C-alpha cells in the first residue's frame, strides 16, 4: 500500500511517500531526517499526538496552569484525557515539569506542568 503523509515532527513539514503492508513500513521517501521515518511508522499504524491544555490552579498569580502530556499519546485517547483535565484542580506552588497526573487515562504519559507558578495572591 502507498500513502502520502505530511510529517509533523518539526516545522519543515516534509511530504512523506510511505509504502507499507499490513505489518510494517516497507519504504519512506521524502523525509529530511530520521524522525520522518519514525513518524511514518507510528502515523500509519498507531498515530500519536502530544496533548497541551491548562488546569485550574489556586493560590497562584494566574487562574490557569499550562500543562502537556510528557510524551505523545494515542490519538484515540485525546478526548478522554481532555475530560480528565477539566476535572483537575491544583494548588500553587508548582514547578515546571512537575507531574500533575501520572499515567493519565492509562495513556502511558504523565500530565506535567509547563510553567512555574509561585504561591501568591491571584491578580489574574
Amino acid at each position, binding site marked *: 500500500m502507498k500513502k502520502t503523509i505530511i510529517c509533523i515532527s518539526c516545522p519543515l513539514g516534509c511530504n512523506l511517500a510511505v509504502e507499507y503492508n499490513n505489518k510494517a513500513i516497507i519504504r519512506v521517501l521524502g523525509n529530511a531526517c530520521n524522525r520522518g521515518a519514525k513518524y511514518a511508522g507510528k502515523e500509519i499504524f498507531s498515530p500519536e499526538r502530544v496533548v497541551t491544555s*491548562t*488546569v*485550574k490552579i*489556586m493560590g497562584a498569580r494566574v*487562574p*490557569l496552569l499550562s500543562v502537556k502530556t510528557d510524551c505523545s499519546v494515542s490519538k484515540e485517547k485525546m478526548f478522554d484525557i481532555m475530560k480528565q483535565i*477539566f*476535572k*483537575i*484542580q491544583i494548588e500553587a506552588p508548582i514547578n515546571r515539569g512537575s507531574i500533575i497526573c501520572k499515567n493519565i487515562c492509562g495513556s502511558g504519559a504523565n500530565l506535567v506542568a509547563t510553567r512555574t507558578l509561585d504561591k501568591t495572591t491571584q491578580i*489574574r
Partner: protein
Amino acid sequence: MKNDFQVIIIGCGVVGAAIARELSKFKIKIAVLEKEADVSFGTSKANSGIIHGGFHSLQGSLKAKFVVPGNRKYDRLCEELEFPFERRGELMVAFDEDELRILQIYYKRGLDNKVPYMEILGRERVLEMEPNLSPDILGALYAPTAGIICPYEYCFALIGNARENGAELLLNQKVSWIGKNNNSRFVVETEAGNSFTADCIVNAAGLYADEIAQHMRITDFKIVPRKGEEYLLDRRVGTLIKRVVFPCPSSNSKGMLVIPTIDGPVMVGPTAIDTENKTDYSTTREGLKEVFQQAQRMVPGVRISDIITSFVGLRPAAVGNDGDFIIGKTDVQGFINAAGIQSPGLTASPAIAEHIREVITKEGVKMELKSNFDPHRKTVCTKIRHLLEKRDFEQYGKIVDKNKAYSKLVCRCENVTEAEIIAAIRDGHTTLDGIKFATRAGTGRCQAGFCTSRVMEIIHRETGIPFDKITKKGKGSEIAPYPIKKGNGN
C-alpha cells in the same frame, strides 16, 4: 415617590441628552429612559460629528430654524462641558459648471438661514486651503463656522452634567407601554418590569419614535431608517484634510463626505439607503465601493487599505413631512415629539432642547430656574493621550504620582490608562462599547485586539460583573460566555 416625575424623556441620544441637560436647569423632577445598556448607542454613536454651518437646509423648514442657532451655542457648551470642539469650516466642492451653479443655490440658502461669513471660493483659494483636494475642483462654497465634535463624547457630557444637576438616567429600560391613568397622568411601563408616572413625555426615541408615539395613538408619521455606512481611516491620513469636505448634494443626502474627526483619524461616508429594518447595521461591499469612489474623487489620497474600522448609522428619517424634523406638541396633552431628527440634528440639538423646554412650559409644567444649577461638569477625567501628544511627560509623571492607575496604559493605540477606564465605569459605562466610546480604548488601529481582556478584568474588578457576563453592548453580546475550567464562573 421614586418613579414619579414631571418629565420623562424617552431616548438618550444627543437629542434626549440635550433636552435632559436643558431641563436640569429647572426645579423639576426628570428621568431619561434608555432602552440600550448605555447612552448614545443608537443613531448618535454613528453620527459623523459635524456641526454644520447651515447652508444645506431649506428655508422655512424646522431644520433651517434650528441649525444656525444650534451651531452658535457650541462655543459655550464646549466651554461648560469640556468636550473637544473645533470650528474647522466646511467646503462644498464643485467639479463642473453645473455644480458651480449649485454652489450659488446653496450660498443663497445659507444667506436665507443667516449663515455667517460664507464665501464662494475659486479653485486656487480652495487648493491653497486644502492642498490634498483633487486638482480637478473648480470652486467651493465655504462656511467657516462649521465645526467638528465627537458625537458620543458630547452626548456623555450632556447627560453627565444633567445627572450632576439631578436628572435621572435609567438604562436598559425599553418602553413596552404608555397610557394615562385616572389622574390624566402618563404611565410608562418598561420591559424590565418598571412603571413610571409623569406629567409630560418627550419622545426622543430616534428610530423608534413612531412606535413610541403609537402608544398614544399618534400615527401621523413613520420613521424609515436611512442607512449610512462610514469608514474610519488610520491616523496616518489624518493630516490630509483639515476641513469637512462635501460634494454637491443629491436629492436624498448630502453625498459622500471626507470628514476629519476631532480625534485625528479621517472618516469617509456616509451612504444613504432607505431600509425597512431598524436593526440593519451591516456594511456592504457595494457601500464600501461607493464611499471610496466618491471620497477619492474629492481627496485622491484616501485609500481602502487605510481603513481601520467601518460602521453603520441609521438616520431616523420621518416620512410624511418632507423629511423635516417633527418637533413640538401633539394632539395628546403633555406628549411632545422630538422626532425624525436626522442631519443636521446634532448641530440643531441645543436649539431643539431650548425649544422643547418652551413647549413643556406651554403644556403647563411649572418651570422655575434652580439657583444651584452648575453648568460645568464636575468630574472630567484627565486624558493622558493629550499629554503624550504634547510630550508633556513631566505633567504625566505628576498625575501618576497622585494616582497610580494612570501609569497603566491599557489601550496602547490610543494611550488610554486604567484610571480613565475606571472613571468611565464609575460614570456608568459597563459594556466594552460604552467604555470604548467614553475613553477611546479599543478605537485605534488594533481595534481592541490587545485591550479587550484587560478592560474586561477592570470591569470585573470594579463592578463585580462575572467575567463571562461582560458584554460588548448589552445582554446577549457576552464576549467570553463559556467558562471551561473547573471553578471558573461560579
